């Protein structure tokens, strides 16, 4: 079968699906959707359809982005617009089936928005919503819309046409096209992709490799997982284009074992590509030979580093080595090797399909195109987003993310994971691009964006990241192995109130030397979370050190819980709940916490009825309370008597 035949059949199938007479139901079943209960929703849908003897085409799709509203379920009735419903539970499913599919009441109260053509009164268009309006979907173009386990659906939406176009050009022309698009590596460092390919193309040698880095290790990042779970072919097509441009005949996808669903979907995708002769020898009759294998990571963050990743594929300890030689000269098994990240390749397939001018029309001068981000932490609308580069942090946090929950104050946004930094409110106007984030002391990174509010201790965040890099350091070079350990020790001391005034200077100094002296980027960027937090939140460090006070009331050694004598009603709930038996009291007695027994677990504060609000958490101050339980002297609050 020629590609044209494959394509026309796929398009016909897709048209039949879109314009068929059966309702279609799309359920967001990426890992996050499943974590929110998508599988139960699927079961409930099947049950409800069976109950009413209804037929529908159910598709498990990837993530469309608004994870905060998951589980998501889209219903497309013939002749009606596609409606996306949010927070769908198995209880809601039968209503939706009955009310909308049978009785034509679209339940606008449960709908998040409509997608695509047509509109319905009372339901906004999904892509007009504040979360989605600023977004441009290039890498995520098919996520949430197609069945990731069906190659035909990808092909129906012009998939693999970029490859066909590339094969009609010379490899040099393809590289030139990628260079012109301005695409930069989406793994974090932002090296121009076309240039990287060119180095590898020009390296002498007949055997060359390409590797897809899907070892998304940054805590707080899930862009690559979502992309592979939602649209694996977009990435694989990019790899084929790159293989042709570079002259590689073999490739690997190095993916973390923590992503079983993405691995399954990749395996299915590779099988389908082989069936369509999009993989193997003489791809689409072009003479291009390319074979692709999946290698599962085994739990080592450092393997996201190129040379460590290659060592791991070779079956060795994932320890980076010095460059030169660069992978483009001597990589996997000593052969020229090109490594790109998942998202980079999803952009490549889009660029080859729609051209460089179109791609370069998004983004800013030196930062073309879009970037996906995983928006998480203390933010209202968590999820997966894709925005043009150059958008401000503020737009992401407040327009797309809808700000901080529970009326709390924004403290910082953490970008770039353990290699990045915490940027405060004063930096919110900053455009999101490679240079600007670096200038602010952070990095673009792979796209993790974790929002931190006033209840998060910034020193604890720095300590958290150092604990992470320290435990993930491979141990090869001295600055990283021992330097992160020293830094972690200092930060732990500060969090425990044992910090010294000179610690801040020591941290700054060691940070500089670890950055300058480490063998690879793990050590070279490990101090960034510390450097940015000192740069923007030095007062919070000083509060810990000088006043032994944790302003965010987080560090256990620096906080105390007290029961206020004028609020306690002697109900005994806290006493019974306290795991360390630190609370004494009695009927109609003011309860008292024995500070020497308290383990700061916060249970008393959580269980004390809101209407009493008798337990307080403080840091750096002592509250005057009775030493022993005393009889209650204050009157009962109204709420208590009413009950």
């Amino acid at each position: 079968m020629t590609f044209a035949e494959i394509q026309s059949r796929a398009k016909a199938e897709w048209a039949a699906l879109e314009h068929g007479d059966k309702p279609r139901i799309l359920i967001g079943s990426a890992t996050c959707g499943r974590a929110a209960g998508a599988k139960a929703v699927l079961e409930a849908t099947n049950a409800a359809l069976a109950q009413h003897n209804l037929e529908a085409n159910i598709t498990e799709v990837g993530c469309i982005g608004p994870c905060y509203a998951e589980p998501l379920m889209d219903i497309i009735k013939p002749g009606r617009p596609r409606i996306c419903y949010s927070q769908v539970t198995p209880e809601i499913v039968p209503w939706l089936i009955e009310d909308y599919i049978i009785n034509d009441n679209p339940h606008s109260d449960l709908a998040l928005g409509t997608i695509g053509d047509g509109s319905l009164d009372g339901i906004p268009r999904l892509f007009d919503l504040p979360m989605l309006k600023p977004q441009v979907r290039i890498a995520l173009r098919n996520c949430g819309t197609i069945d990731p386990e069906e190659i035909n659906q990808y092909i129906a939406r012009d998939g693999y046409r970029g490859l066909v176009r590339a094969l009609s050009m010379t490899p040099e022309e393809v590289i030139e096209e990628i260079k012109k698009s301005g695409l930069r590596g989406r793994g974090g460092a932002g090296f121009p992709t076309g240039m990287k390919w060119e180095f590898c193309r020009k390296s002498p040698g007949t055997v060359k490799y390409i590797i897809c880095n899907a070892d998304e290790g940054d805590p707080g990042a899930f862009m690559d997982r979502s992309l592979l779970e939602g649209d694996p072919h977009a990435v694989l097509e990019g790899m084929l284009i790159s293989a042709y441009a570079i002259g590689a005949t073999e490739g690997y996808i190095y993916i973390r074992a923590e992503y079983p669903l993405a691995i399954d979907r990749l395996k299915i995708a590779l099988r389908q590509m082989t069936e369509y002769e999009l993989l193997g020898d003489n791809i689409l009759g072009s003479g291009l030979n390319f074979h692709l294998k999946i290698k599962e990571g085994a739990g080592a963050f450092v393997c996201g580093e190129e040379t460590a990743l290659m060592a791991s594929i070779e079956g060795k300890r994932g320890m980076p080595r010095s460059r030169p030689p660069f992978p483009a000269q001597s990589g996997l098994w000593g052969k020229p090797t090109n490594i790109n990240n998942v998202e980079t390749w999803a952009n490549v397939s889009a660029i080859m399909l729609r051209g460089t001018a179109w791609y370069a029309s998004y983004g800013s001068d030196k930062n073309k195109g879009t970037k996906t981000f995983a928006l998480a932490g203390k933010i209202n609308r968590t999820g997966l987003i894709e925005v043009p580069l150059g958008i401000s942090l503020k737009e992401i946090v407040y327009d797309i993310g809808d700000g901080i929950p529970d009326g709390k104050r924004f403290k910082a946004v953490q970008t770039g994971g353990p290699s990045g930094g915490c940027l405060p409110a004063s930096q919110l106007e900053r455009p999101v691009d490679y240079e600007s984030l670096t200038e602010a002391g952070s990095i673009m990174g792979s796209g993790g964006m974790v929002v931190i509010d006033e209840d998060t201790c910034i020193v604890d965040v720095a300590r958290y990241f150092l604990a992470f890099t320290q435990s993930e350091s491979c141990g090869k070079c001295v600055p990283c192995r021992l330097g992160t350990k020293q830094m972690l020790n200092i930060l732990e001391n500060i969090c425990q109130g044992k910090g010294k005034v000179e610690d801040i200077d020591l941290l700054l100094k060691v940070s500089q030397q670890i950055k300058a002296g480490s063998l690879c980027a793990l050590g070279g960027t490990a101090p960034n979370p510390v450097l940015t937090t000192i740069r923007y939140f030095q007062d919070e460090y000083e509060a810990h050190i000088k006043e032994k006070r944790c302003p965010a009331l987080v560090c256990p050694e620096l906080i105390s819980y007290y029961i206020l004598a004028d609020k306690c009603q002697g109900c005994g709930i806290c006493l019974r709940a306290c795991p360390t038996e630190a609370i004494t009291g009695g009927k109609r007695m003011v309860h008292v916490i024995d500070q020497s027994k308290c383990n700061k677990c916060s249970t008393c504060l959580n269980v004390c009825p809101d209407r009493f609000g008798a337990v307080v958490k403080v840091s750096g101050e002592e509250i005057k309370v009775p030493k022993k339980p005393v009889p209650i002297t204050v009157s009962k609050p109204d709420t208590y008597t009413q009950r």
Partner: protein
Amino acid sequence: MTETELKERLTEVLTHYTGQKNELIPVLQAAQEQFGYLPAEVMQEIARFLRISESTVYGVSTFYAQFKFQPTGKKKVRLCRGTACHVRGVSRILDEVEKQLGIKPGETTSDLEYSLETIACFGSCALAPVMVVGNNVYGRMTPKKVAPILDGTEQ
């Protein structure tokens, strides 16, 4: 498990591989899938199969967090220590799980029912804090949800 049984099961695992050095990590993963952990005899047999030294097998297997050297429980309870989970209070979930199971991360209950681990990040950050039991991912966890999930009565 008797020694012969162990050998037979390992031989079965090894039939899927050709014996090249670069297969070490996949072979270790498959062996761990089979035995739940990597017994010393299994690692030694793998070294012979791939014609590499035993110390290399030990060096590689101890480098990667995935590999375990002690029997693990039937149900693996894994908590995410990612950034989003950290700022959204996964430590309180961890405390609750530790209390319910009576074990710390890296440990297994004496009846070999449960193992507890923490994982760098599951990539389900939007639903933080996240707990995984077996292959089931539970998002937006609260301490109260822990017990019902562990004893299988969750709704």
